[in-house]
């Protein structure tokens, strides 16, 4: 059987398993083992079930994911998210739609100490949502700002998604963290404009709030040193070359742990909850990587990725046309899949093509992260929307999606800008190299 047919059957089986609600990592693992066995033999294929997870478990680059998870959860529990939000609130809360803008800025700021989009969403669902609703903001705008703001958690470094991408494509994660800075700023700016547009078209979406005194503003600012310290230590340490990424993540864990102890005392029950919740989220990612790495053996042995690269090269399409095609592919896949899963499943095919066309894999990583951000807030599986919906049953899904729409437009504009001008992404990492 020719390799493409084998790979195609493998893919079809994997989709069938996934449709049957089998977790994506497990589905990839099954097809990987089965496919490898079909070509090479059962004994070597089954051995992959030990050797690949073992290699993944001892991969120290991947170890920053649990550390960033733990850091984000500790920082949230220590109230650092409240601090950032309060600062933004104190300075711009009184403007039209100011609390929504403060939510966006706060999420971006908290994103600098939290690597996860869902954690950022859940945190601001607690920190900012009740206040906006109390103060008469439309639930659509309030929840839209939080769901969209939450996506900043993965584009503002540190970011677990970037770590995952860097490992699977063998890029240096610091390059991705550096490349993300301008796109992240652009995201915050465009989201602020999206809030502006919402309140311009729908004046009743946001209520008027009295400005705070300068005394209160300075008080908020003074309380914000925690986040500043944590992000300077972690990101500053990485960018300035003081720490390795692993060390920075470990330092971040310890600093946020100290903050939690200093501010809340030692609450064993709370600490237990934090540790367990970070641990299960980590386990979920690792199981997915187990499956993805086993699956990639099968793909390698079929030679299908190389065949596809050759086919696309032979078609002689304009490189940018191929990129747009991939983005459309992700939008289609995003209707069925979690976008992170879509990225992982397609890496064996897409990365060789992108590389062959002469695009930079760091740039493509940032584009991937933005596609994932968009996926987090679009139906049918917008994970951030699900999180908010689970927290506040009284806000219906359609209402949240309505509130998200302006932010979705902002994301599309950002994606178009960054695809059209790769220099915006690549300028900083090249400067710092």
């Amino acid at each position, binding site marked *: 059987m020719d390799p493409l047919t084998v790979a195609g059957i493998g893919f079809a089986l994997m989709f069938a398993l996934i449709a049957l609600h089998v977790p994506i990592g497990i589905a990839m693992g099954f097809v990987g083992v089965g496919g490898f066995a079909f070509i090479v033999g059962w004994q070597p294929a089954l*051995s992959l079930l030990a*050797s690949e997870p073992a*290699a993944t478990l001892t991969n120290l680059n991947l170890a920053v994911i649990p550390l960033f998870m733990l850091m984000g959860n500790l920082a949230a529990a220590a109230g650092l998210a409240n601090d950032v939000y309060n600062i933004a609130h104190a300075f711009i809360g009184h403007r039209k739609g100011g609390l929504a803008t403060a939510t966006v800025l706060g999420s971006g700021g908290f994103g600098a100490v939290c690597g996860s989009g869902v954690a950022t969403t859940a945190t601001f669902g607690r920190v900012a949502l009740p206040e906006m609703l109390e103060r008469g903001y439309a639930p659509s705008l309030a929840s839209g700002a939080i769901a969209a703001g939450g996506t900043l958690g993965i584009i503002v470094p540190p970011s677990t998604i970037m770590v995952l991408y860097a490992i699977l494509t*063998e890029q240096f994660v610091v390059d991705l963290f550096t490349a993300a800075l301008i796109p992240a700023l652009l995201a915050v700016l465009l989201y602020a404009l999206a809030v502006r547009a919402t309140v311009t078209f729908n004046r009743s979406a946001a209520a008027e709030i009295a400005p705070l005194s300068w005394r209160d503003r300075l008080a908020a600012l003074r309380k914000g040193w925690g986040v500043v310290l944590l992000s300077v230590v972690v990101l500053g340490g990485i960018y300035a*070359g003081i720490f390795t990424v692993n060390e920075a993540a470990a330092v971040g864990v310890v600093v946020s742990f100290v903050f939690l102890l200093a501010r809340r005392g030692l609450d064993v029950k709370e600490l237990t909850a934090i540790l367990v919740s970070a641990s299960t989220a980590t386990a979920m990612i690792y199981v997915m990587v187990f499956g993805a790495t086993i699956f990639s053996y099968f793909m390698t042995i079929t030679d299908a990725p190389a065949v596809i690269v050759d086919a696309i090269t032979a078609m002689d399409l304009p490189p940018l046309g191929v990129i747009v095609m991939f983005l459309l592919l992700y939008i289609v896949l995003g209707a069925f899949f979690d976008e992170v899963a879509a990225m992982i499943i397609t890496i064996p095919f897409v990365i060789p093509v992108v590389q062959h066309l002469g695009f930079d894999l760091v740039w493509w990583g940032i584009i991937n992260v933005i596609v994932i951000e968009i996926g987090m807030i679009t139906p049918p599986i917008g994970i951030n929307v699900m999180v908010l919906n689970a927290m506040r049953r009284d806000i219906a899904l359609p209402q949240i999606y309505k509130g998200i729409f302006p932010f979705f437009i902002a994301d599309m504009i950002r994606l178009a800008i960054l695809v059209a001008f790769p220099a915006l992404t690549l300028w900083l990492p090249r400067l710092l190299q």
Partner: protein
Amino acid sequence: IATGATAETLRFSSIEPPVAFLTSKVFSAWGKAVEDATAGEVKVKIFAGGTLGRSPAQQLKLVEDGVADVAFIVPGYNPGVFPGVIVGELPFVVPSAKAGSLAMWSVYEQGLLEGDFDKYKIIALFTSSPQYVASKPEIRMPSDLQGRNFRASSPSLLAVIEDMGAVAVGGITGPTVAESLSRGVIEGSFNEWNAIKSYRIADAIDHVLEVPMGTSPLMIVMNKARFEGLSEAAQAGIDAVSGATFATAFGDAFDAQIAATRADYVAQGRIAITVPDRATLDAWKAASQPVIDDWLAAAPGRPALLAAYRAAIGE
């Protein structure tokens, strides 16, 4: 998968990237030689850059399990499995990759090497060329290592530098040496010129002191059952281009590459390269002797092994 009626394709796993010189020159040349020597009965397909397993430590297991048929192994990542090859890691023993590799094959054939060798079909044994002191601060004498964080590429070298008062740092693989150097996790490392170049260590160091502090032993192993499943003619064909023949090809290519890379850095002039004088050599030699003595005393066959290895190099 098979292209001809009787053609067998061996999956050769190499963690080295496809463009790296070992993969592109040495391993693929062996693959071609196998094809010729077996009259096309056996072909070799190289999976480079870790496409069959990214982790260096995992490569041996891949061959054992039959995921790969042949693999390039760095035994240093599987400490304790092939203790015999440590003879090539000892400071001041191996002068060049070619001499070290040929001598390693010779002592293997004499049955002097301890380790799990019978479990695999050993295609070839190599050593790199000697590793030098590559560091950020200037290091002249063993005493300059006092209190400094250093990465050693082998347990024996690690013991040597601990003797000299350095703090041995583990858990750093070749590709992460440069990052660890630039973040101050370590101040220096022991590497040969190829590694200094390909791992971009050159950008992170200012000094290289060329004292021969031992090599990195390397191996090519094949799944034993897979080898024995081939026809006798094919087995003979593979044997003809492996062992000493492969060691010679490897050693020549490696040493030539080292010379060219070193010449590049000399021309660039950024790194201060020190060729040690007699007194410096003697000081480093004396400082590493206790560890060599410990190693020799640790198992009964070792003095004979070292003597045989030295004799084979001397030839």
